[in-house]
C-alpha cells in the first residue's frame, strides 16, 4: 500500500514537472515571438522605407494573424542590399536579414559568398533577432529551385 502511494506521488510529480516545463517553454517562446513582432512592427518604417500598406497606414500595427518568428525564417529573397537582404516569407511578411562575417551561406553542399545570392532565390535563414526587428543570420541555406516549373 505505501509503495502504491509512493508510485502515484512520483508519477504525479513527474506529470507536474512535465506540465510546468511545457508551459514554461510556451511562455518563453511566445514571449520571444511577441517581442520580435513588436520590434518588427516598430521598425517597419525604418527597415523597409515606408509603412506597410502605404504611407497613410499606421506602421505600428502588429503583423496580421499570429506573432512572427525571430529565430528563423524561409521564403523568397526580394531585395539585396550591401550587408543585408529582404526575404518575403509566410503570410507575405517581409523580414530584413543581416549578414555579417560569421554568417555561413550555403547552397546545397557548397559554401557560397554573399554576392552569389540572387533576387528570387528561396532560402532558409537561422539566426537571432535584434532590437531593430531584424534577424542577424548565422546560417543561410539557399535551395535549388527546379527550372521549368
Amino acid at each position, binding site marked *: 500500500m505505501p509503495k502504491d502511494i509512493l508510485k502515484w506521488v512520483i508519477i504525479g510529480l513527474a506529470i507536474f514537472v512535465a506540465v510546468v516545463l511545457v508551459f514554461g517553454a510556451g511562455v518563453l517562446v511566445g514571449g*520571444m515571438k511577441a517581442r520580435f513582432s513588436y520590434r518588427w512592427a516598430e521598425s517597419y518604417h525604418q527597415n523597409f522605407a515606408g509603412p506597410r500598406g502605404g504611407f497613410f497606414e499606421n506602421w505600428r500595427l502588429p503583423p496580421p494573424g499570429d506573432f512572427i*518568428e525571430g*529565430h*528563423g525564417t524561409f521564403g523568397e529573397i526580394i531585395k539585396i542590399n550591401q550587408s543585408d537582404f529582404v526575404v518575403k516569407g*509566410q503570410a507575405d511578411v517581409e523580414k530584413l536579414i543581416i549578414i555579417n562575417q560569421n554568417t*555561413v551561406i550555403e547552397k546545397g553542399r557548397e559554401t557560397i559568398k554573399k554576392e552569389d545570392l540572387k533576387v528570387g532565390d528561396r532560402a*532558409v535563414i*537561422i539566426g*537571432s533577432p535584434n532590437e531593430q526587428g531584424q534577424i542577424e543570420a548565422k546560417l543561410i541555406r539557399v535551395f535549388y529551385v527546379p527550372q521549368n516549373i
Partner: protein
Amino acid sequence: MGRVGKGSDPGQTLEGCTESILFFVLIYMKQIKQIEPPAGLFERIILAIKREQELRKTKRLLFSFAGLLVVSLAAVPFSLALLVSRAESSGIIYFISTALSDLGIFLTIWQNFSLAILESLPITALLAFAISLGISVFTLRLFLYKKGLLLKYLKNYA
C-alpha cells in the same frame, strides 16, 4: 346470494351454474395458498434482473464506443491534413531538413535551431491531431478489452 357488483349486468343473478363456478374458484384459491414456490425462484428472478441490467449497460457501452470511434476516426484524417498544411506553411519542415542535412552547423548553432523549430511549431494542429488520435486509440483499446462482451451482445441481439 343476490346481485353482482356495480360493474356487472344488473339483470344477471348468481344463481344456478354461476354459483357452482364461484364454489370451484373458492376451492382453487384455497389450493393456491397451499402451493409453495419452487426452490431457487427468487435467485433466478434476481439473476434475470441482473442479466437484463448488464445487457442494457453493454448496449449503452456499445453505442458510446461506436459513436466515439466513428467521430474520432473521422477526425484523424482531417486533423492530419491540417497538421501537414500548417507544418508546410510554418516552415518547420525546412528548418528540420536544414538541421539534418548539416549536423555540424546544427551542433554549432543548436540554440537558434531549437528556438526556430519551437517558434514554428503548429501547436493547435498538433494538439488537434494528438487528441483525435488519442481518442481513437483509447476507444480501440477499450473495444479490444471488452471485445468478448460486445461481440456476444452483437451476436445475440443484432
